[in-house]
């Protein structure tokens, strides 16, 4: 199978969906780039993380729409366009910018279907980069998926690898509901096998990335790779099952519970802040549904309740590490 980067997978998903369906448009800041500059410069940016390179050249200004720095107008325009027949994919560049436009996401797009009694669809995607590890500090490095997952009407996607990124983004575009599509900035250069043809991965279906008997590790986003590495390292000693939910809303608790019923031990690893986050959500659901299956108290590994620090050494401490995943697993086995 061809090997592609996470960035290329995103690009391919967008390109193939735009080829398939002329109602799919892209809108955001510098997703083409170069407007108002020299001749020939338009399209040279292809979004700040380079994931949209070439799409302007292929689809032109009517489908790859550069905007002023006006996120409420961008996301609201996407919502209005979605209500009236397009399938817009809006880009927020860094998802941290949602704070200036959240109303159009959470009060508008997410609620239309319910408020209008089901008589509409809002098939839109809001893409943006998330996560720490890039030295981009407090306002450009947040996880945020717990906030989005809290909101009824939104679906929240957090791919951990190139294969999933392509399949989930295609699903997001075809989905008839508003989808928050979160791209971990540290993963953009990650490579993996990605089929050339279009395919979609359904939402709410977790992926077992490592099968195991002794401990269930539920990991989100970038943490999936870390958990896999630790599982591989410990293989001779401890049999670790790693579950990647892939979407945080809907959240595939069924598969998680099935696994915990089997292993009796649970670690949840997430890069987001701890209060009202995914770790709490997963652990509480397991406690409610399967407390009897737990042989020991579940473990939680998340970022601390602090903003993301700028200093690289502090940022590294902020993010859950392979070492801490390993210690947590060992702790579960000992107690």
């Amino acid at each position, binding site marked *: 199978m061809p090997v592609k980067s996470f960035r290329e997978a995103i690009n391919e998903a967008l390109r193939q969906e735009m080829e398939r369906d002329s109602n799919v*448009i892209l809108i955001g800041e510098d997703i083409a780039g170069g407007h108002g500059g020299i001749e020939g410069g338009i399209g040279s940016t292809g979004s700040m993380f380079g994931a949209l390179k070439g799409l302007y050249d292929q689809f032109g200004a009517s489908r790859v729409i550069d905007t002023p720095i006006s996120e*409420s*107008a961008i996301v609201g325009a996407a*919502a209005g366009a979605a209500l009236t027949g*397009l399938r817009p994919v809006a880009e927020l560049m860094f998802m941290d910018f949602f704070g200036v436009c959240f109303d159009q996401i959470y*009060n508008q797009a997410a609620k239309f279907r319910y*408020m209008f009694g089901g008589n509409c*669809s809002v098939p839109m995607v809001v893409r943006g980069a998330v996560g720490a590890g890039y030295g981009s500090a407090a306002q450009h490095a947040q996880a945020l998926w717990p906030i989005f997952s809290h909101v009824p009407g939104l679906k929240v996607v957090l791919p951990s690898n190139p294969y999933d990124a392509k399949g989930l983004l295609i699903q997001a575009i075809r989905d*008839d509901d508003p989808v928050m599509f979160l791209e971990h900035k540290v993963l953009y250069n990650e490579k993996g096998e990605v089929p050339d043809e279009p395919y979609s991965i359904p939402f709410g279906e977790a992926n077992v990335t490592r099968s195991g008997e002794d401990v269930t590790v539920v990991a989100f986003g970038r943490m999936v790779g870390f958990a896999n590495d630790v599982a591989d390292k410990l293989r001779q000693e401890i049999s670790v099952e790693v579950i990647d939910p892939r979407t945080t809303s809907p959240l595939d608790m069924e598969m998680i519970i099935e696994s915990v019923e089997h292993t009796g031990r649970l670690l949840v690893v997430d890069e987001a802040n701890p209060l009202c986050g995914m770790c709490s959500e997963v652990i509480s659901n397991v406690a409610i549904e399967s407390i009897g299956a737990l042989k020991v108290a579940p473990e939680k590994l998340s970022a601390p309740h602090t903003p993301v620090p700028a200093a690289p050494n502090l940022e590294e401490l902020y993010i859950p590490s392979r070492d801490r995943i390993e210690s947590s697993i060992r702790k579960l086995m000992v107690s």
Partner: protein
Amino acid sequence: MSASLDKNTALRGYEIMKTIREFETRIAAEYAAGTVPGMTHLYIGQEAVAAGICVHLSNADSTASTHRGHGHCIAKGCEIGPMALELFRKEGGICKGKGGSMHIADVSKGMLGANAIVGGSAPLACGAALTAKTLGTQNVSVAFMGDGAANQGTVFESMNLAVVLKLPVIFVVENNGYGEHTGVDYHVGSKDICSRSAAFGMPAKKIDGTDFFAVSAAMAEAAALARAGGGPTTLECCAKRWHGHYEGDPQAYRAKSELEELRRDADPLIIFRSKVSAAGDVSVAELDSLDAKITQQISDAVDVALRAPQPAPAELLTDVYASY
């Protein structure tokens, strides 16, 4: 009657205005009687704006509305029966009773919803205009908003975006004198709203919002420009609301005499009647019989709504997602 307006369009405008007036008058009475749940903001006094704008729109054109949205919904073609059911939050409501006064919508009619968030309409209307532009349909969209909404960042962003992308959107700022209990002279620093729009680089006009024909004429021009690919326009339509901000508002911020003057001098229905009878195009009898038909229709609709059952309990959990 304006030269550019045919008789049928004018009558359609009158019908809209009268329907709004009658519907809301009845709702006000019901609200006072305690039968209407939640908050309600009435549009009475501003009828000529919704009518003058929407007579130029088809179902394929879109409007995004406000918390004071009944008038826009009626003008855009939402059916009175389901609207009444929605206001009482009953089964069969236009939103199944799940939206209420501030979320009435009928996307099939191009009514993208009342909106309980001030300034929420403008970006959405840009989106509908973007659809029109992208698909090359020559449809237009209208963002209704109040004078207070005109201070929201979302609105300014939308105006610039619309100019930059040459979107076929018309920003209709209904300057009704107040945002909640605060006068426009206080909350708009420039003492003029449309000049701010003009500064964004689009045509912008101030219009007597109690005169259906004035609104209609301005809208005809704006819509034609937009349909021709000429981009956005702002119309600041001045027409004070007769009721409080919400039903039950004690209105300590304005004089009783202001209300008396409005009813006497600024009634869009009276102004319409006097204009058409001066022109001799429409007979008083014609209008009176329209009035009677509308009164009956609304009385029937509200009576049905009052008796209708509440939504089925299972409705609580549906319509969150297309499928989940």
